[in-house]
């Protein structure tokens, strides 16, 4: 990048101090961005656990959040790049459409829930229900995840470098799950599956995009749907 261009973009960084500025001003400013504008760099300081920080982004903006956030940070993100330099409360990147959300710390329950696209990277641990009802989002967790993760996951990928809690992938559809550590238990209709070359290639790509350089795709196991519970069958009544 040309240095003069970089300086210009740095100068254009807009800083919102949530200790003194109402949250709505931040989110309104993010929503007011017109397509094609250069004014796309935002910084949020003193988030102090606020809810709904940087929700509803629909332009390719960059938001650096300096501290920990509460519920629903970066929800519905469509094309933005949001980095939380701290931990995130429940529902981070819920229903993401596209873009990237990075949590430098831990994430609370239902991170990336119902996400349809984009990449969510959690550098610490994620709590229960990570990726619940995921519908195309890719999630990479550097640490471990809690119980009931990827419940009813329909598509997308969940990559976990650590361990998974109870009932991983319960009632799973076609989301693909990769876990490097131990899985405490698999949920109904979730089974370990063969790791084929296309899976290793996809995993390598996701790890690279998530900034993981020291871990090989071959260290993971793949889990997916046994496809026995897609439609109700009385013979499977015990499994529901």
């Amino acid at each position, binding site marked *: 990048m040309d240095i003069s261009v970089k300086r210009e973009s740095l100068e254009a960084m807009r800083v919102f101090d949530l200790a003194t500025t109402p949250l709505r001003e931040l989110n309104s400013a993010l929503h007011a961005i017109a397509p094609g504008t250069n004014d796309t760099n935002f910084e949020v300081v003193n988030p*102090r656990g606020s809810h709904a920080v940087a929700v509803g982004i629909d332009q390719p903006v960059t938001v650096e959040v300096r501290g*920990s956030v509460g519920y629903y940070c970066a929800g519905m993100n469509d094309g933005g790049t949001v980095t939380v330099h701290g931990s995130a409360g429940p529902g981070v990147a819920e229903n993401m459409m596209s873009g990237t959300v990075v949590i430098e710390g831990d994430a609370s329950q239902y991170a990336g829930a119902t996400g349809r696209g984009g990449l969510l990277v959690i550098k610490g641990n994620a709590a*229960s229900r990570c990726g619940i009802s995921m519908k195309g989002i890719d999630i990479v967790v550097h640490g471990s995840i809690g119980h009931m993760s990827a419940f009813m996951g329909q598509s997308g990928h969940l990559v976990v470098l650590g361990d998974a809690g109870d009932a991983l992938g319960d009632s799973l559809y076609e989301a693909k799950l990769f876990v490097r550590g131990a899985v405490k238990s698999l949920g109904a209709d979730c089974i370990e599956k063969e790791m084929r070359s296309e899976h290793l290639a996809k995993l390598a790509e996701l790890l690279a995009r998530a900034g993981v350089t020291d871990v090989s795709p071959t260290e993971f196991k793949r889990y997916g749907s046994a496809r026995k519970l897609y439609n109700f069958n009385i013979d499977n009544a015990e499994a529901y």
Partner: protein
Amino acid sequence: MCGIVGLFLKDKTLEPRLGAMLADMLIVMTDRGPDSAGIAIYGAPSGGRAKITVQSSRPAVDFAGLEALLKHLDAGVTVDLKSTHAVIETDAMQAAAVRDLLAEQRPDVRVMGSGDSIEIYKEVGLPKDVVARFGIREMGGTHGIGHTRMATESAVTTLGAHPFSTGADQCLVHNGSLSNHNNLRRELVREGMRFETQNDSEVAAAYLTNEMAKGKDLGQALTSALDDLDGFFTFVVGTKSGFGVVRDPIACKPAVMAETDQYIAFGSEYRALVNLPGIEDARVWEPEPATVYFWDHEKAA
């Protein structure tokens, strides 16, 4: 919803500020439940003295001449009036007699809690108003618990507010809802427990009291609660020297904890903790589902 805060101090120099710190934490949680609010503060026990926190909806009537009345039992009794509440301090040997006399002479007065060190204040209204009404900011202590309520299982009344205290120096706050509380209440009544409300959380408090009366410590009682209580819960509980936290196995009710050399803190959300000293460098974590956490001043000492 509902908002819970708790603070268990390790650093004695913070003790004079316990009330102020808890009050600020609770006010941040106001939007999790605006129906009623309450706080339990554990102060320093003064040897051989018992504290009884009482409440009346007609304090001008019920508390008039109360000290003079109780002096017939104990010449050294003191009655500290605080709005709708009063804290009676008496010789521990006379505590039961004081309660009997109250029941007889002031039948509308309700006992919020009693013991060597606990004081409980709770009322309908917003945390900021409840905190101001009872002068919580000026109170010191070793540990304390606060709650702001969004009612689900029973009426919005003073008695339905948290914390619930069902045993000496014990209290419990709850975020969630229990599904087997009616059965459990019947069983506990059969075992001799008494109830003031139809509230599910009071059943949880009485359950723990009953288990501890059988000889369990707080940690063991919380472990049994995981087997015997059905429903959603994050509980924070206090005893004279202890502080405990437990979440149900589903763990959908939020909980964040922080620990430094100075304190152990609990909040329904991280927001409640951001003003604590040294929070930037604290160990911050979410308590695991179906896992009992408890700390005890006496065991630590």
